[in-house]
């Protein structure tokens, strides 16, 4: 039994097909990186996993059951922006999950329960290197620190799947390196299954165990909306973490908009 499985998955908005002919099995502990040109449905795919969008056809199952059609605590998420609550301090942001679980009507903990939640949150923040900023508000943090906070917050519910939508896209290269180390460490320690969208092919190879390239392989010049994107490459990334020569080139070319290079059908 695979953790996550898709068969003939298709997603369309009205007449416009966004994703088509998608099938895969993902096991617990895999780190899947998703690359592809802008507007080829990577984010839509992530929304399907998240449950904010529904599949139009085919099947998408988690533990052999259809994926719920709304977000839930089994699937954590970190977006590029707006991932943390601006009205809560760093500590309260991370405590949120436990407070929601512990207090159904108020969503807030008091007394001993609150102290326990504070301790857990503090420990988690220490892990991501935010121990010095417990009582700051998100707007006082740098972009990198905000994303650290978002990751810490998302992991509080111990999600089975962690979805990352270009989480490091807005960060400086140096900070990115730190974040890569952090996410790799958390992934190993907590046996997470991660899906990460990125624009950076190097990043995709550096982090993932498996790389998916999303692209449109069928084109109808008269009806550009008739065909959607699919997973054109599904690569296991080995220990050396180096992209094959040709793929690195083609994906780079594709990122620049040369989608026509992919006329021959892989997979």
């Amino acid at each position, binding site marked *: 039994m695979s953790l996550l499985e898709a068969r003939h998955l298709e997603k369309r908005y009205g007449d416009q097909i966004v994703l088509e002919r998608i099938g895969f099995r993902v096991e617990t502990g895999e780190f899947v990186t998703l690359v592809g040109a802008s507007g080829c449905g990577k984010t839509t795919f992530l929304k399907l996993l*998240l449950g*904010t969008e529904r599949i139009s056809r085919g099947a998408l199952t988690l533990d052999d059951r259809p994926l719920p059609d*709304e*977000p*839930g*605590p089994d*699937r*954590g*998420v970190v*977006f590029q*922006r*707006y*991932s*943390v*609550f*601006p*009205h*809560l301090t760093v500590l309260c942001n991370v405590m*949120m*999950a436990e*407070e*929601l*679980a512990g207090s*159904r*009507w*108020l*969503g*807030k903990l008091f007394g001993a329960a609150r102290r326990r939640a504070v301790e857990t949150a503090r420990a988690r923040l220490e892990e991501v290197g935010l121990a010095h900023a417990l009582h700051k*508000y*998100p*707007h*006082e943090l740098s972009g990198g620190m905000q994303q650290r906070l978002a990751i810490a*917050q*998302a992991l*509080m*519910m111990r*999600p089975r799947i962690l979805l990352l939508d270009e989480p490091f896209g807005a960060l400086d290269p140096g900070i990115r390196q730190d974040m890569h180390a952090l996410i790799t460490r958390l992934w190993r320690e907590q046996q997470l299954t991660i899906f990460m969208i990125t624009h950076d092919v190097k990043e995709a190879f550096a982090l993932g165990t498996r790389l998916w390239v999303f692209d449109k392989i069928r084109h109808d010049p008269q009806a550009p909306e008739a065909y959607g994107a699919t997973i054109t490459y599904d690569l296991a990334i080995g220990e050396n973490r180096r992209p094959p020569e040709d793929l690195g080139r083609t994906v780079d070319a594709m990122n620049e908009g040369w989608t026509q290079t992919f006329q021959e059908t892989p997979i």
Partner: protein
Amino acid sequence: MKRLINYTPSRGSRWLIGLVPFGIIALAYLVLSNARLAGNPNDRLLPSPATMVETFTQLATQASVRTGTIPLWDDTFASLERLGLGIAISALIGLVVGVLNGGLPLMRAKLSPLVTVVSLIPPMAILPVLFIAFGTGEMAKVALIVIGVAPFLVRDLQSHAMRLPDEQLIKAQTLGASSWQVLLRVLLPQLMPRLMASTRLALGSAWLFLIAAEAIAAQEGLGYRIFLVRRYLAMDVILPYVVWITLLAFVIDRVLALTSQRLFPWFHAEEGGKS
């Protein structure tokens, strides 16, 4: 030569520059008042500052013969009570309906058209209805303020709730939040500072409705007093009362602004520090 938009006054001179227009208006009044009083010492239209201070002190310190109480404080407390009650009820309605409408699409579909239509009714046009329905007591005046202000607050908070990034709502759900918890822990706290800001804006119309209602039917109140003495052309009462009302409005506005800055630092940081 620097562009005009890049010139900013220093802290001290900003105060000074801000005071200049007040000085000019005061000076203009003095000149006009002097000219009229020189022609007719009993002129009532532009009383001298001394007369106004004297009348105002009298109103603020001496009990009225008719009621045995001090008119200014009676008026002030009566008006502030109505205003406070009206604003508090409006804020409560605004917050509850705004959060529900903004957070629950099903609720929004039902209530939003109604709120929009109600907010377009000119409140003054249904003042007679209120007087007929609630009598000429306190209820009608408070109701006028609520009808005038609450729909504005509802619409403003609703649109603000809908502008909150979807990412936050999704994030909350991935943290295990129920619908109720999303409304309570994500929407409500983020709408509170917005409520303060909208209330500050709405206070202007709240005063308008208050004074209008008091002018028509009341036994005391700031608006009542102004319209009462209008019959005697008592500008020496009206003008100080207007200044007094303005001062009250200013103080309330500042208190709300400072409270908001104190309670919601994260909100005001986003606004950017322009003064």
